[in-house]
């Protein structure tokens, strides 16, 4: 019997519960304790019927419970022309904190880490259209959050090429990788964490600098330059697409081989057909390479 009670107690401790409503942003961050994310449900509280409907479904009826998996959700009411009471209500929830940048539409479900960095948002109309879609998207973000955290932890400990590869892997998730996410609480590791941040800064290259860099090169030189960059590794999928975008633009404007251009667009698209530059490559195949749907899909 003692064993059973002990097990039940342990289970209750593990499943510490998900807070709805009353919890403030700061309290939720504190409660997350550096390991878990926090979800902000931001909604138009006095001007938007769509928000009201989602609030009712997601929060009031606790529809998101399954997707949250123990992660706290903070209700953030966004007011239009707030009166004093509404301002106080907002202040009570936010406790002086501001919403992270990157939220573009309400209602939304923003996933932030324990330092308040926005890591991902469920905010598009398609994702937020109903409970099932929002739950699936949110659940996916939370899963990715935990996975990405593991990769980042490894990256902090690793060095050199291994670190670069891990950072690139982390960047491949549908989540932002804030520099502060690499901070180590262990003071001995501070130096390493700084190195990791430097690596991450390098990862955030500006494709326009690359465009300008290869502008004066021959097509051959530019091609080899990009390939060398790729071979050095440590690039996320999106960056590889941007690199190929720079190369294809160069090839196209300099009247390079159509076959080469086509092959490069196909390669660019195939890295990740769902990204914006994947879609761009797909459109470019139609626009500049005369590829019909059948040919593109390889039929």
């Amino acid at each position: 019997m003692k064993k059973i009670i002990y097990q039940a107690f342990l289970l209750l401790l593990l499943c510490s519960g998900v807070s709805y409503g009353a919890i403030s942003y700061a309290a939720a961050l504190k409660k997350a304790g550096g390991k878990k994310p926090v979800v902000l449900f931001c909604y138009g509280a006095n001007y938007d019927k769509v928000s009201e409907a989602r609030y009712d479904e997601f929060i009031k009826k606790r529809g998101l419970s399954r997707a949250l998996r123990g992660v706290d959700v903070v209700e953030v009411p966004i007011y239009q022309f707030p009166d004093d009471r509404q301002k106080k209500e907002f202040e009570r929830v936010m406790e002086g904190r501001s919403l992270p940048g990157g939220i573009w539409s309400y209602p939304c479900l923003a996933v932030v880490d324990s330092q308040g960095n926005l890591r991902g948002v469920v905010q598009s109309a398609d994702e937020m259209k109903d409970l099932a879609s929002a739950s699936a998207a949110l659940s996916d973000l939370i899963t990715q959050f935990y996975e990405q955290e593991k990769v980042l932890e490894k990256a902090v400990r690793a060095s050199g090429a291994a670190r670069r590869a891990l950072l690139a892997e982390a960047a491949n998730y549908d989540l932002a990788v804030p520099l502060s996410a690499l901070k180590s609480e262990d003071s001995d590791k501070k130096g390493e964490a700084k190195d990791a941040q430097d690596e991450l800064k390098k990862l955030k290259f500006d494709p326009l600098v690359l465009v300008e860099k290869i502008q004066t090169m021959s097509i051959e030189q530019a091609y080899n330059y990009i390939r060398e960059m790729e071979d050095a590794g440590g690039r996320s999928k999106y960056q590889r697409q941007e690199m190929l975008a720079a190369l294809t633009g160069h090839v196209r404007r300099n009247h390079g081989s159509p076959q080469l251009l086509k092959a490069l667009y196909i390669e660019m698209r195939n890295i990740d057909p769902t990204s914006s530059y994947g879609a761009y490559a797909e459109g470019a195949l139609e626009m500049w390479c005369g590829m019909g749907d059948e040919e593109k899909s390889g039929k």
Partner: protein
Amino acid sequence: MLRFIILVAMAMVVFAGAGYIIYPFLFPLPAKQVAVEPKPEPVVSDQKPEVVEPVKPDKPKPVVKDDTPVDDVDEGVDDGKEDTVSNIESTDFMPAESGLTEQFFQEDDVPVDPAQASLPPVYSNPQVQDARRMGDQLARALEQEEKNSRRKGYFKSTDLTAAQWADAITLRQALIDKILSKLGQFDQQSMMAFLQDPANRLDLARLTLINKAGTAKVSEIAKSSLGGRLLETMGGDLGWMYGLLYSGPAVNMDKTLDYMNAIFMRNSEELNNPLARRVATTTALEFAREGWNESDMLERFSYYFNSARSGQLNAIFDTLHYWDTRLVTGCMPNGGWGGVKSLQWQRDNVRLPVQGYLDACNQIQYRLRNAAGDTVFSTSDYIGPYLRKNGGILALAYREIGGVCGACSHYGAYGALAAGIPAMTMGEPGHCAYTVRVGDKWEKSYTIYWQRGMHKTFWKEHEWDFLELMQALYTDEFKTLASDQVLALGDVLSTQRKVKAAATCYENSVIIQPLNWMCWLRYAGYLGKYGKENKAKWKEIHDLSVDTLARKYHAAAATLLRKYIYPTLLPLVTNAKERNKMYASFFSVCDTHGTNRWDIANLLNAQIRSLKDDKEKLDFMKTTLRTLMSKPDYAPGALSWGMDFLSANSSSSSSEEMSEDFYKLVIGALSRARVTSKEADETWRTLGEAISTASDNSDRRAFQAIGKLAQRKFRKKFPRTKFAVRSTGGRLISETGLIQTAVTLSESERYDACLHWGVLQKTGGVIPGKFEGKAGLKVELERTSEITGAVCVLGEKARTDRPFVLEVSEDGQNWNVVCPSAQVQGSTITFTWDSKKAAVGRFVRMTREGDKYEVKKILGFFVYGKQLRNRDKDK
């Protein structure tokens, strides 16, 4: 085990009751339905893009040279899909000033009543007050009517059938007879008494509709399957008629009726739905006014009506009146931004409280080129491939790829419009900004300059002041409606050639509501028709506009004077003293800029053009400058205007003398100005504006004079320590020159423009720089010189990936490269060359190869060499 499960279940119930739900791993997760797209932030359009099966990576072999041009494969590929892409990223966002809005007065073939044949005499003060009082009475009645309408609706009448509307000629005559019979002696009192009765106002509206749409069109609509019902319902409902006729310009009414008929043919069950009426009427009015096509109009109607009905718009949309709904439903197409696809996407993906749209522009990454290096100005290359794959949604495409000011501002403005909130884009010199109405106030966003032209306007006047005027006009709802009634009555009377009564109505309409721009135009137009030589009446309208409209809406009043009053009035005023007094009266009521800084040059030019000789012009200039230089808001503009005027008239025989007098006047005035802490800011701004204008006009002498004056008066603003720059040979010859940057200066940059002069001095100053192609930094030297080199000091570490180039020219047109590659050390760029190759010229230009490079601060630019003293004299 069973006990264990029970215990856990009990614990869950307890926690759930306490406001917690334990997330149990016992529950299955919902199936993954929508994949979150990779960075940037996920966006999913309404129309799902085609799912593309991933194809096995197919890495091409290392490149082998192949000379086949890529363009060859382009041939025949164009399927015209790029039509959805417009050249929205043009730099030309500033709308040009429109010409006169001509006024037409329809007149029936009726005899002129001798008692009504001429204009009324000039009003006495009590008469003006009487007119105002009667207008206020009418406004109060209209306000009461509106209050009552909330309970029982507006006045309705079912006295007209569809068959009667179908015989519009007979109906029109019957309405005219009815109205005239009720007007009695056509005096002010009887006319205002007539308007007190809602039944009369409805008849007046019916007649106005027939007059505007034409009897043929009304008959045609009334005979169509739904049109008769539409006219019966609408023409019997005073509230709806107000919305149709008095919510802004009611032009192309025949087309408006066609469009409304088309809408209600498809939505006949909504004929009594107030939302449908508002959306249909405003959409039809705006599409007809702008001359846009029916299919787009129907789409736009459906978008707003369905979105509003299903609660997808911001709550603000429900509170709009007809006039401001027109700004939303009649938003400009602007190359696809106003297309339903893009609006729908923004409605669903950029849902914000109204204030949020002021920052929504930041959702677009500012970039001139995409990752492929295509410039945003080549729209189809830049965004075409992506648009093909996202269903042609412009807003989504720019959010994914990024853009410059045009895309950012359109994204912000159309985000608000998509949600049903009044907003519009606006042009600024070389820039696009936008404005969103927050509450009753138009808030600007993404703006960098005071000069701006609205892209949506009711009266074809693009200045900001007109936007504010429109807002104030319709906020003062009942006075405006009262003046509209009086104006409509005037129009009816003018058709019956009751000149005196019609003119009385027109004049009363501006007295009742001086903010009503259309009333001013109608009144001035009527005076033009029946009183071209009537100086007293023209003087009266001038004084009335100065005394009322000009008090707050200075720019609008200036436009009224310049475009509609001066052209007739000025030739009638032959006495220069009287004219100058008239001119001065305008600025006596303008202490500040009013709602927005405005360009006084147009008004001053119109005034000075009326003067005969240089003496009169100089006198005018002196008087005007004396008045305006004492007004901090107007001093910079007045100074710039004077300099522009002299520059434009430099070929006249006495220009030299005028120029001397002008500079003495200005420099003297500025030198004498006491620079107390209160005035210092304004004086600095005045000088900044003046020196910018001197630079714009390439007026080196003025540039130097103002620069020196600024340094004398504001020593602390200029650096004091000399730069440790080594001469490239010879003396510093650029100190007395003129420096010009390729940057379009923002308001704050113009404010500090005196520091541009400092850049040429040994102690340095500040000027922003932009290097792009042949645009860079240009210096005009005082004299043609033998140049040995130049040194440029930036406020940042100079980029070294492209060479800086120095060119020299004798005429500022034909350039020779004298140094193709500068030495760069930190922030210092030094141009030197073989001293044996003499570089002779008067102009020096620093450029840079490659893409645009913007430098926030250039601190010094020094040209060395020797002035060739006799060279310019010889020429």
